[in-house]
Structures are given as C-alpha cells and as structure tokens.
C-alpha cells in the first residue's frame, strides 16, 4: 500500500474508528443477516406493495419487511411513528447492543425525504375532504426529516445535538464524511452518523417521471443498463477518536480515513459528462486520507445503473484508478437515496472484514466505453486494503469516503 500518512501535515490529526454499526435494508435486519445476503449476492428487489404503481414504468423496489422492525417497542407512542423512525430505531438498537457505553456528542445523519409518506397521507386526507381524520395531527408531527433521528435517539436513551443533512442521494456519505471531519479536527471524540430513507409514492413517481427508473432489472455498469430501482433502509455507525476507542478497549470494525466532497454545477439532475464532479470527490477523499490511488483495493460505486451516472462515474474511476475492482450493490437492494451512503459503508466494512468484495449483480455485458473491473454477479475474495465508497446526488453533490476495514 502506498502511504504518505507519516510525512503528511495531517499526521498529528486524530484517526477515526468505527466502533459499532447497525443496519436494516432489503437485504435483512442486522449485520448478520446482511452479511449472509451479501455473501449470497441475493437479489432483494420485489414488486412494490406500498402504493399504486400501475401507471409507472418501474414497478419494483427494494423494500424492508415490516416484520423486521421487531426491535421497535410496540407502545402507544412508537406505533404512531413513521416507518423511517422505526427503521432508525432498529438500526440504532443494534448499534447500542454492540456499544452500550457509546454516548455521542453529536449526531450527523443523512436523508432525502424524512417522513414523506405521512405528508402524502395528509394531502390525500385533505383531498378527500376528511377534515378531521384521526391520524392527521400525528402525521404532521412525524413528517419532518429530523424526527426519525430524534425518535431513535430517544428510544435508545441517547441525547445529542443533531445535524440532518439533505444533500439528495449523497446525504449518507456526506453525513459520515462530516462526522469523520468533526472527530479528525479534534473538536469531538464520539459522533453518531448514518442515513435513512423510506420509500414514498412521491419520490418513486418522481424518479419514474424523469425516466431514471427502469422497468427491467437494475444492472449497474452493464452495457444495457436502463435505470435505477429505488430502495429503503437505515444504517448507523458509531465513530470515535481511535486513540480513545483503543484506550477503552473498544472493538474497532474499521477506520474512516478520508472524505472528499465536490459540487458539479452542470445540471440539477444530470452529472457533467466529463466526470469532473465524481473525480474531484474521489481525489479529495484520497488527499484527505493521504493515500495514492494505488492504495485503493476496492470501490463501492454509486452505480445507480442510469446511463449518465455510470458513464461519468466509470470514466472518473478508470482515469483515476485504472482497473481497480468495482461493484455497485444497488442491483441487490435498489437505491435507498439518503440511506445509500451509510448502508453501503456498512456493506463495505462487512465485506472487507470478511475478506470478500460484494457482487455487482444482474451484470451481463461490459460497456465498451468503460474500462473498469466489475465484480460481476458473484463475490470475489479480497485481501486487506483501503476501499472507497461513493455517493452522488441531485444538485450535483458528490461525496466519497475512504474506509480501512479491520479483519473480523
């Protein structure tokens, strides 16, 4: 591995450990179920059941089974909560089981749409002239995007200031990246981070209206890729100053070693064809980690399977890294928007700790325009090393983080 860390001006900055994590996604509830699904390269996309999709091109999504939200207490208060809150509670409960003493000084969490489906319910109730529907006040109170974060903290007996980042599909990676920088600056010792999003009709139809969603399988980086499918879920990571974590004997799952952010001003929904936005984010993440491109042994790509995203991301990866192994896990679970960066960070940590690279499923043929090494359809064994996880979003926001996992 090419490392410059000892000679870098950042050598005296604190290192940042991941000491616990929790996840719920279409792949399963919890790290164990998720690892099993990742190993099996399981396709967890299914027909949408939550709202009508017969007028949409795309009719499938990655969906979290409500039965998995079993960790959520079934009392009067939590029954009113949005599914997003329940997913966050589930993920945070798993994290707390691993690190019961972890008391964050700050929480930085990404999302795109908060409790959007409660907003939809509210609108439909108005439209039907149901002036006094029983649930209306609770829909309003549980709609705001900060609510699931506050709910999860409260349910797990925690209290910390919250920063909720809504940078579209890059939100989860932005949240981890900012949390990382908060610790690396020396201003914080423990920061809770992550991302969440629950499927909603408005967002589903929105992507469909843009023809960004596919009626077929989601095939990231495939020559015949035709668009994304949406997903949902939540993931949280406990970040801690590495020295402090080691001093208290904490289990270190991984280190977050670098973070890069860039803004591509080309278009509200399309990346610049040159790939400058993704490239700058990845370059800045490497610079932040004081690593050379050759040190990266795996990239968990944003890889939405839209023609534009995969072309620009693939171009940037190829130019910067050559033929490093790349996979997008969105073929397995869909694009969970604000949760994607956090869930994919957990996927990357789980896979690398267990010495394999996640599969890029539904891959049939290489795009001749993209000179990249896709981990096609089956997992691949992996040696230790640093990985990059990418997330790019509407508004031209791009984020990359460098993850160095510790062997399980």
């Amino acid at each position: 591995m090419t490392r410059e860390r000892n000679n870098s001006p950042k050598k005296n900055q604190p290192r940042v450990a991941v000491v616990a994590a929790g996840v719920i996604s279409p792949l399963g509830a919890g790290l164990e179920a998720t690892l099993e699904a990742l190993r099996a390269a399981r396709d967890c996309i299914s027909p949408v059941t939550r709202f009508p999709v017969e007028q949409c091109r795309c009719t499938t999504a990655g969906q979290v089974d409500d039965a998995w939200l079993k960790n959520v207490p079934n009392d009067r208060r939590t029954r009113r909560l949005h599914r997003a809150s329940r997913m966050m509670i589930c993920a945070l409960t798993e994290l707390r089981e691993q690190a019961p003493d972890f008391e964050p000084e700050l929480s930085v969490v990404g999302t795109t749409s908060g409790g959007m489906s409660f907003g939809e319910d509210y609108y439909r109730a108005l439209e039907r002239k149901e002036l006094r529907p029983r649930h209306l006040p609770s829909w309003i109170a549980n709609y705001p995007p900060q609510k699931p974060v506050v709910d999860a903290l409260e349910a797990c007996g925690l209290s910390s200031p919250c920063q909720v980042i809504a940078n579209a599909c890059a939100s989860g990676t932005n949240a981890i990246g900012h949390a990382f920088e908060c610790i690396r600056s020396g201003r914080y010792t423990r920061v809770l981070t992550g991302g969440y999003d629950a499927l909603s009709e408005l967002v589903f139809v929105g992507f469909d209206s843009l023809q960004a969603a596919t009626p077929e399988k989601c095939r990231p980086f495939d020559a015949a890729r035709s668009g994304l499918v949406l997903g949902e879920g939540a993931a949280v990571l406990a970040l801690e100053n590495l020295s402090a974590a080691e001093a208290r004997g904490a289990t270190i799952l991984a280190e977050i070693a670098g973070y890069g952010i860039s803004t591509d001003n080309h278009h509200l929904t399309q990346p610049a064809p040159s790939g400058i936005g993704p490239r700058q984010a990845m370059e800045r993440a490497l610079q932040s980690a004081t690593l050379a491109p050759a040190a990266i042994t795996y990239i968990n790509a944003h890889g939405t399977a839209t023609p534009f995203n995969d072309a620009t991301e693939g171009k940037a990866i190829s130019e910067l890294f050559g033929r490093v192994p790349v996979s997008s896990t969105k073929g397995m679970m869909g694009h969970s928007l604000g949760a994607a960066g956090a869930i994919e960070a957990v996927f990357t940590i789980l896979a690398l700790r267990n010495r394999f690279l996640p599969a890029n499923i539904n891959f049939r043929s290489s795009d001749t325009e993209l000179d990249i090494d896709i981990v096609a359809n089956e997992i691949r064994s992996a040696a230790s090393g640093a990985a990059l996880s990418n997330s790019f979003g509407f508004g031209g926001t791009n984020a990359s983080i460098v993850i160095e996992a510790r062997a399980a």
Partner: protein
Amino acid sequence: MSLGIAGLGWVTPLGATIEEVWEKLCSGAAPEPTAISESLGEKTFRAYQVPPAVVAEVARQPRLRRSSAISRFAVLAGLNALRDANIELDEASAARTALIFAISNGGVIYTRRFYQKIVESGAAAASPLLFPETVFNAPASHLAAILGITGATYTLVGDGAVGILALKMAEELMTNSELDRCLVVGAEEADWLLCDAYQRWRLLRAEPPIEPFARPPRGMLLSEGAGAVVVGREGKLSLQCIHPGGNFAHRRELAGHLDAIARDVQAGNSTDVLIASANGTFIDQAEEAAAKNHFPEAAVYTPKPALGESVGASALWQLICAAQALRTQQLPPLLHVPADCGLTSARVPSEKDWHRAVVTSCGLNQQVAALALQLKSISTDR
C-alpha cells in the same frame, strides 16, 4: 475557534436590503399579511409574503427561471450577503468557499403541485420538470451554480433552530484551513398547505398580531424569505459561541433544555441584547424563563411580530437583527408584548454601549439552539 461575520443579506416581507428593512423595523412597521387560499380546502389563511417585485430581477437568472420561490429568496439573500462583504467570487475564491443551507419545509409549493397531479390524474401525469425542484437541496444547488462553488455544499434540514445548527456546521468546516469562508443561507416559502398543517397543529392564528410572551399563547403567522451570513475568520462582529443545541422529545422538556443551553452561552459573560425566537406559541414561556434567569439585564427583542415565523430562515433573521443591534446600537420596538411580561425592552443602551448579543432559537418540532455575538469595536459606518 472565533469566527467573524463578514456580510449579511436578507429577503423579507418588508424588503431585501439590510438597512431598509432595519429602518422599517425600528419605525415599528409590520407588513400586511396576504390571504392564501387553495382549492384543497375552504379555509383562507394569512401569511407574510415577499412581494414578487423584490425577487423579480434575480428570477431572470437562467438557472432560476423554473425554480420555486424558495430558491429565488435564497439566491438573492446569498448574493446580497456577499455584496455586503465586498466579495466577488472568482474560480479560486469560490473553491475556498463552502455553502451551507438551512431549510425546514423546503420547496413545498412545487411539492404540493407535483403530488396534486399524481393524486388527481395518476402517476403518468407527474411532471419531470417539477420533481427536481422538490428536493431539499435544490436551492443550494442553484446558488452554488450561480456562484461557481465546486467544493463543500450542504443542506441541513430541521425546524426553526436549523439556522443556528447551520452556523455550527460552518464553525466546524472552518477548522479546515483550505476554506476562507462559509456562506450560510436559511430559506423558506409560505404555502396554503403549510398554513393548514400548522393550524391543525394548533400553532397558527387566523389574524395578526403575533403576540409574543402572551399567556396563554395565541399562535403565530407564517412568513417567507431568506437570511444569509458570510462567515469568515475576521470581522467586527465575532461569533463568540455557537451552541450545538439539543432536542426536546416533548414540549414540556423545552424549558429545561433551553435553560441549560442559555447557561452555557452566558458562561459568566455580560449580555446586552437578547434576540428571542418567541412567536406566540408554546416556546415563548421557555424563552421568557431563560431571559429572566440568564439574561436579566439584556434588552429583549423578537422580530416575529413584524416579520412572521419564517421557520428555516428565522434564526438567520434573528442573527441579522442581533448584528444590526450591535452595529447601530439600536433595537426596534418589541411589538404586541403584554404589559406585565417583565422583560427589559430598551431601544438604546442606557449607560454603556452594547457589545454582546445572544440569539436563542426554539423550533416548533424538537430542536433548540443558541449563539452569542460579540462586537469588537463600535463603528459609525452604519
């Protein structure tokens, strides 16, 4: 780390230049709320809206031709703040500038229109032009594109306290020596749907005035606009302390959280001015207690009776009021306050000049934060 305020900008129902709006506030002016109706319901609500002429010029920007009102407010406020700071961004300086947005309800007008089509006519009728403008970070994206910012751009979402949380994030980002400044913008647009929701939540009143600190609380009126602050490492006004804030799971917990935050922000200092977020709702009682317990000598002001409750923009408007109070050594009249509330409402300093102002911001949905602003030297340039 101490940060300085280099420039201010706002777009309000009273106008869009700092001095013009401040003079109106000091003269006791308040805009007339406009009526908002909608086919969804029979009710008509009143809200303080930005006159269309205020944003007519900025709306001609190619990037803003199809944008929602919130983006236009945000862009104008951001450009005004940079102008106030005498900063004209070029490629090099834009690369050393971060953009942080504070948003609560976001592009609700386009969101309502987009979903309305789905409900009325089905998914096939959904507009691909509207959907991108419904995304929370659309306003930030437009301003970043207009300014050529290619580095860090963040949109924070939350309730009325989110503006202070965005300033806290700016403080965190400024530990990076590769950044020279952060442009922090809070923005919101008013819509019938929001009025209906806040009314059903028993937080809205039908007609003005907003009566802060009244018992029982009688409710607020929504407003719209944007506030923007250029945060750098220098400035006559320093952001002495930005508290990271807290969350209250239940309304009854707010007073305790605010009390602890106010204690931290006061921390043995002498505070001359308190710009509260009191808006005629349940938060007022907590703010009144914090003012009496921790800032008993401070002159208290809330801009909400004059400007309305602009949620995501409100904390930035409060900060601008605090800055203007210190810059001009003057406060507007505290409108519609009960005679017996017992808070200090001085308009000018009595014995010594005002040097320190505290802004407290209590959101309506669980977030609370505060900051302190310090004037380094009295200037006569304003």
